[in-house]
């Protein structure tokens, strides 16, 4: 009996160790980034690091809670959880609290809760539930539209609450769909559109169209299917040109000025030195400070609590979105590389576990988890070191904030629970 019990709860300890490493290292960096003057008590709830320590403590309660449910519970209640999450997002329009122009929080006393952080795991559950349904076939347009509807609903609600960064996260489900049978053509189209968009912004519509033409001509002469008509190719070209125009129009007329400038900085579009100077003080300010902080770390960093830029609060929002710059400054190249490797290992481990799942629900959910960690890690870290335009999303387990921490913990530990149950599935 006892042996059976043990077998039933075979947790993947590697994942749990990675989680513990991330959460502790994250706490140390928040401590460094948020302390002002002497640290009198690590539990001081008036200080951010004190609060974060409380969040970390509660995380463990939450983990016990998540693991105590039957694995089947999550599959069975996926739809309900999803609906609750959507309602929570809708409720924001009525009861939400404005912070920094985004209406993303519920205020309960002095506490705030950000439902978008919880909507991610709910959406992942819902997607897993729908995709793993025996009736669903990802190759059909009908089902494709339905799963897109599942991810678009929270994405649009979040966008309406002025949190564009969190909206982008939902694009990551493309990886899940592709794994579950989405046609190759979508991948080709997606990559092509990204390429055309970048070309159109950087070099203009004409160059983008020329490149598209060149690629299409090459493809036409190398085509295997001799029946495909020239007309089809012309149609595709027309779509490409239309899309490039669309991108430019979107960039020039739909995007807000600060969003324009972020892209402009990333693609180095601005040539006017006066305007660049101004951008340095505004959109690029955080980025420059963050890059300088990381750079100043050198090989080994300045040491825990010894970062001069971190102590001087040179990087705004350092304890939240820019927490990685603290790692860079205080722990140097070795420390930063360690964190990058922790994330890569975690994601690869989850992917590996997902592939070994017997139930499709668990596998799809696992893929969802890996994709969500992947996009957060890539966008956040990439942004902090200046590889990706500024998008404000947190670094899992590192950035300060209870909702984010708990959202990611639930996301991960539901999978840990599902995975621990795979022995019982056949």
């Amino acid at each position, binding site marked *: 009996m006892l042996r059976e019990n043990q077998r039933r709860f075979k947790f993947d300890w590697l994942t749990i160790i990675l989680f513990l490493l991330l959460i502790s290292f994250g706490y140390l960096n928040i401590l460094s980034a948020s302390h002002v*003057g002497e640290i009198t008590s690590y539990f001081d709830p008036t200080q951010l690091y004190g609060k974060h320590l409380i969040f970390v403590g509660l995380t463990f309660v939450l983990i016990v809670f998540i693991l105590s449910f039957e694995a089947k519970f999550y599959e069975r209640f996926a739809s309900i959880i999803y609906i609750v999450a959507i309602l929570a997002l809708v409720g924001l329009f009525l009861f939400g609290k404005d912070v920094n122009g985004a209406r993303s929080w519920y205020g309960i006393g002095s506490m705030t809760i950000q439902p978008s952080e919880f909507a991610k795991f709910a959406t992942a559950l819902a997607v897993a539930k729908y995709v793993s349904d025996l009736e669903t076939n990802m190759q059909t347009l009908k089902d494709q539209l339905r799963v897109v509807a599942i991810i678009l609903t929270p994405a649009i609600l979040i966008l309406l609450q002025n949190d564009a960064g969190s909206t982008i996260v939902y694009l990551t489900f493309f*990886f899940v769909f*592709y*794994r579950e*049978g989405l046609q190759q053509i979508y*991948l080709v189209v997606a990559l092509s559109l990204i390429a055309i968009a970048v070309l159109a912004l950087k070099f203009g519509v004409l160059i983008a169209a020329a490149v598209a033409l060149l690629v299409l001509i090459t493809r036409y002469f190398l085509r295997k299917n001799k029946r495909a008509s020239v007309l089809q190719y012309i149609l595709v070209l027309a779509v490409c040109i239309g899309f490039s125009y669309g991108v430019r129009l979107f960039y020039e007329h739909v995007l807000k000025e600060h969003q324009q400038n972020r892209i402009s900085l990333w693609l180095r579009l601005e040539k006017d030195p006066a305007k660049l100077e101004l951008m340095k003080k505004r959109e690029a300010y955080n980025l420059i*400070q963050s*890059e300088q902080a*990381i*750079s*100043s*770390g*050198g*090989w080994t960093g*300045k040491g825990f609590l*010894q970062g*001069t*830029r971190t*102590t*001087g*609060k*040179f*990087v*705004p929002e350092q304890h939240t979105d820019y927490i990685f710059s603290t790692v*860079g400054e205080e722990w*140097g*190249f070795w420390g*930063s*590389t360690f964190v*990058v*490797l922790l*994330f*890569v290992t975690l*994601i*690869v481990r989850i*992917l590996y576990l997902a*592939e070994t799942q017997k139930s499709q629900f668990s596998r799809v959910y696992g*893929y969802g988890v*890996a*994709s969500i960690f*992947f996009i957060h*890690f*890539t966008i956040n*870290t*990439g942004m902090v*070191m*200046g*590889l990706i335009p500024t998008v404000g999303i947190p670094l899992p387990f590192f950035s300060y904030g209870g909702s984010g921490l708990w959202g990611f913990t639930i996301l991960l530990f539901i999978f840990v629970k599902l995975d621990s149950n795979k022995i019982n599935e056949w």
Partner: protein
Amino acid sequence: MRKLLLLTTVVLVGLVFIARLFYLQVYNNSAYSIFEDNAIRKVYNYPKRGYVYDRNGKLLVANQPSYDVMVIPREVEPMDSSDLTEFCRLLKITEEEYTKKLKRATRYSPRLPSPFVPQLSKKDYAVLQEKMRKFEGFYIQKRSLRSYQTTIGANVLGDIAEVNRRIIAKQPYYKLGDLIGNQGVEKTYETTLRGVKGIKFIQKDRFNKNIGPYKDGIYDTLPKPGKNITITIDARLQAYGELLMRNKRGGIIAIEPNSGEILAMISGPSYNPNLLVGRERSGNFKKLYNDSISKPLFDRGLQAMYPPGSPFKTLNALIALQEGVVTTEERFSCAMGYKYGNRKMGCHAHKSPANMNIGIYESCNAYFANIYRRIIDKYESPAEGMDNWSKHIKSFGLGNYLNNDLAVGQPGKVPNAATYNKGYGKNKWYTTFTISNAIGQGEVLATPIQLANMAAAIGNRGYYYTPHIIKNIEGDTVPSQYTTPKYTTIDKKHFEPVVQGMFDVYNKGTAKSLQIKDIEICGKTGTAENYAIIDNVKTQLTDHSIFVAFAPKDNPKIAIAVFVENGYYGSRFAGRMASLMIERYLKGEISRPDMENFVLRYSLEHEYEKPYLVKSFGINKQTKLVPIDDQEFQNIMKLKSEIPKS
């Protein structure tokens, strides 16, 4: 395949990130230096610069606070026009100047502080200090400037000036805007006087506000105050000497023979050291520097090399005795000069034949030509004799740098065999070719300080201490090189006849008129021919007046060399000045006001103008003395009365 898309993407992203981290943190990053870290403010605390006292304890140089507005260009925030106007008004500069200065500072370094407006007045500082907070990137650095307690000794004391980039490149201790000794003792005792500045590292936040000491101040240092020094100069004698040199050009060096301490070091024309303080410094310095006619920054006591003339004869007498080529009583006849080959070296009318004593006090050229030939010809070849002679002369500190603690100096020139080998070809010359050396003309050059030192060595009967200016360093000792005697190659016993000869110069010789009651002075007049190139023509000008002396005859307390450019014969100006200086030093007052009045009353400025006149002019005997006007004379007399008696 489908399984691999996310997996490969994740691994790729990880690799790209690590590469980016490597680029940012290792490849693109020089070693971390706290001085380059703009999150840490470096606040320098400048120590008090050491004071300078004269040998009697009179304070000569003290300090006054000064405030520089410094800028760190990278931290400057663009100001709106009303702020800019206010800032420029407070600093008393125009907006164009503001832009220009900021550009210049940025060119030097955007992240290191540069002086923006140096040396504000106390009043401007008080107003500005209140508002400084508003102007990001600017701050006020307190420094200390010199405050001269005297108007004399500009060439002795020197000045301090802002370091230039060349100095900073060589000595990283100095930062832009720092001050460094530029001339005089400020330069030679720079490290003693300046002390070591302290530094505080302060953690800033991104709003440029201080948030506290960096790492609790473990790297901070306290400033080490500069040490006070006492110099060997007697301020009263210096002041008196400068008055005597008024309206003349030349140098006076007075040395205490039994210590080598420099009592006075005068260079004419001089200037008020206060001209080189504060905001007016650079303008004034430029003016002095560019005065290529009277060259006030050229220290004639240390840097001017003249043919020493007759005083040099005393050395030839000493060498002749040492080499045993003459006795003191041997006589040589002089028929208004010395004939050699078909040439003649002229002399004046005096008792003949002359023994050594007469030779010296009558300054007989023929006598010295004879003994000089014997000195050289004692050896098999003139070259050997020449080198031997040269060695003796050099043992008196001539022909080379004195290696002392003065900021400037010149080696002078003493020829040896190589000199003539070069000029005439190896061994293609004879003693007579070099006969001018017998009377201190020809190839010999010396600075006044070398001649004063020569007098000291004769007065000491055979040794000297390197002339130096440091008497005492607070909490330190004077370097031993100044307290160990340097012996000449002449035995002590040979000095008495020469000293007697120099004594008789005052008793019955060329300086008879310059006797001072109760003081036994030994001296030697000198005259050096003076040529200048005017319109590409070598033109003779009025001779330089030279005098070398020491007193009293036994255990001398002062040795002196006076050089007056275009002063004509030795006793006219240089001799009088030497006697007055000696009397002033030994007695504290002047017993012969007529002699003093002569020196103070007459100017040589008209002599110095001659080369620049279009018309022709007379020299030497044809010159007339021109008195200064009464107002200037009254002024000088007033200054004289202000010098304390003792």
